């Protein structure tokens, strides 16, 4: 390892460690880290700042920002309020069904909008039901935990659901259709396995009596809370139509036209916002997810500086030189990706590991590598509460909701409350990732 490789990878690792240890300062930490990486790269003669910035995948950031704006339009249409009411009716506000129904609802919602938006839309509704129906610590821990894992799975199911998949789409690693056709069934299998184990082995509502009075009151209150909320068609129709047009373009526009997914996103989101002029202008001015953009931009800068030292090629060559088969190397890589994501969170891991994945994809089927990687990153995101940005948000929202048990004791949703669900989710999703990769490899042979 050269001096430049050592120094720049140390800057990256230190920034990742610090942002994991101090999540409330994560944006500041990675921003400072990016500045230091640029300085070090310039002084060590690796690359100057202009070159590092030119290598940033701006197309990915554009997809992230524009999809975020479309998500906000859909949220403003009250679509998700209606869905929350439907989920309440389907579950009957019965604790035994609530966990399953809301996990499925979360999976669907987070496949369409980004994970944070999905969480902000779905979690408060579940909090209301938990407070109305009565609950205990075990039930809260498992139900919210399963909801978070389902949120991660939904995000990995579609190319527009979460950052790792957006990165694959934006960088042209996989087409929209290929990713959807491969990742959606795999995530569905993982979700089904998670829900079966939860419902029949864990049984979060074990010991909680079926209480028709509470269930009836919970249903009535939920109906009253949403009594006059209706789908705003003036917002929903243009937004949904624009999204459908974007999906059609991603699926069917020939690549020979040179119109990439980022341009489709840009034009589609502009159309949706223009068709809702006032709200569109307001969202464009105030609705940009500056925090996410700044965080990812800083990560890309740090990863770019390390890439310019040739370290990722070195790691890829090291992986290739392992005395095991290509399939074995892929499995080691996927397992490593899951654990690293658990420690450093999805954005940094995906940005760094994609460089190594690109090398593996030259020798192995790309779908096995990339979808396997997306699933492994999803597994890692589900391992610890701090591994994905949705975890701390869920923790904060739950604290604010002040949920209590029947004796009035406050119920928590912290790191250790989530851990059993996290370990189960990690095991199931990582096994699905490796199983999926093995299945693709077996079909090629």
């Amino acid at each position: 390892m050269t001096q430049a490789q050592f120094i720049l990878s140390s800057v990256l690792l230190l920034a990742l460690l610090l942002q994991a240890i101090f999540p409330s300062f994560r944006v500041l930490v990675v921003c400072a880290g990016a500045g230091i990486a640029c300085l070090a790269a310039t002084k060590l003669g690796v690359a100057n700042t202009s070159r590092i910035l030119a290598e940033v995948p701006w197309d990915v950031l554009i997809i992230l920002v524009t999809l975020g704006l479309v998500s906000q339009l859909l949220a403003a249409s009250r679509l998700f309020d209606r869905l929350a009411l439907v989920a309440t009716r389907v579950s009957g506000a019965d604790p035994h069904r609530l966990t399953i129904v809301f996990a499925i609802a979360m999976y669907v919602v987070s496949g369409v909008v980004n994970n944070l938006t999905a969480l902000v839309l779905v979690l408060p509704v579940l909090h209301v039901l938990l407070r109305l129906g009565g609950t205990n610590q075990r039930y809260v821990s498992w139900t919210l935990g399963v909801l978070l894992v389902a949120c991660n799975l939904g995000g990995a199911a579609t190319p527009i659901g979460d950052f790792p998949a957006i990165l694959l789409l934006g960088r042209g690693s996989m087409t929209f259709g290929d990713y959807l056709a491969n990742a959606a069934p795999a995530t569905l299998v993982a979700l089904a396995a998670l829900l079966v184990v939860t419902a029949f082995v864990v049984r979060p509502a074990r010991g909680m009596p079926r209480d028709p009075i509470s269930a009836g009151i919970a249903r009535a209150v939920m109906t009253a809370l949403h009594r006059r909320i209706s789908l705003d068609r003036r917002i929903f129709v243009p937004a949904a139509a624009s999204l459908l047009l974007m999906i059609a373009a991603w699926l069917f526009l020939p690549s020979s036209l040179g119109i990439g997914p980022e341009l489709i996103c840009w034009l589609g989101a502009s159309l949706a916002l223009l068709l809702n002029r006032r709200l569109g202008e307001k969202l464009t001015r105030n609705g940009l997810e500056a925090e996410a953009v700044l965080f990812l931009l800083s990560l890309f800068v740090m990863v770019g500086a390390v890439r310019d030292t040739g370290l990722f090629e070195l790691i890829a060559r090291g992986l290739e030189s392992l005395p095991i088969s290509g399939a074995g190397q892929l499995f080691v890589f996927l397992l490593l990706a899951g654990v690293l994501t658990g420690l450093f969170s999805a954005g940094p891991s995906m940005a760094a590991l994609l460089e190594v994945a690109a090398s593996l994809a030259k020798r192995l089927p790309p779908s096995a590598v990339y979808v396997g990687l997306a699933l492994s990153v999803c597994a890692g995101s589900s391992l610890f509460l701090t591994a994905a940005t949705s975890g701390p948000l869920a923790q904060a929202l739950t604290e604010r909701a002040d949920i209590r048990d029947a004796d009035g004791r406050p119920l928590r949703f912290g790191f250790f409350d989530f851990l059993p669900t996290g370990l189960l989710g990690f095991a199931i999703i990582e096994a699905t990732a490796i199983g999926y990769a093995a299945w693709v490899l077996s079909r090629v042979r």
Partner: protein
Amino acid sequence: MTSLPRHLGQAFRMAAGELGMASAARLFVRELSQSGGDALVGEACDVLGREYPVLDFVAHRWIHGERESRLDPAPTVRALEGITRLLVVGLETDALDVFVSALPGVEIGLVAEPFGVEPDMRRVLANYHGVLQPVSLTEFRRWVGRRSALLTFVYGTDGHTAHVAATWLRVAGPDVRPQFRSLVGWDVLGEPMRLYPRWLVETNCNDFSALVGSIRRSTAAGPETHLPPS
């Protein structure tokens, strides 16, 4: 041994935070009656009454035959005739639902006090399709004017004092009163509560320029309109 769920009080507090105490009480009493008849409503009175006196009041009236309470907005609308801006202090969704549509062309703001847990104002306001605007305590002075009025919900009055949400005292101080054309209290219970009015504060009836009670009850004896002194 009660057949009521042990967490019912917490559930009521949550519902009251976003629907209003009287609106939530009516809903709970209706649901309890469906599940276990008057006996269960009576149990709720006994177990939760002291903690939640508005629930106690509504449950007690229910047991005594007052099954449907329909709020009539007409007297309140008359008291607010001619205004262009209205600031509502407190939350009672049953009342607001029938009232907001009766004031076309009036700009309406809402200062909702957290009761128990902070209400999800986004959801509260979504039920009014943009007609109600959220107003914080720091910005309510923007609403003063010769054609502006303040309205709050009153939970029973004996003719001298009225029970209101604590926010009312913070909004309608002596320095603020002259800056609004009217200060209207809308009695959503129609009669004084039976128990100590926990969660509420007392105010002088003379502080209101109009105090209207507009519950029209259908009882076995027939419809009756109750208007407390104003």
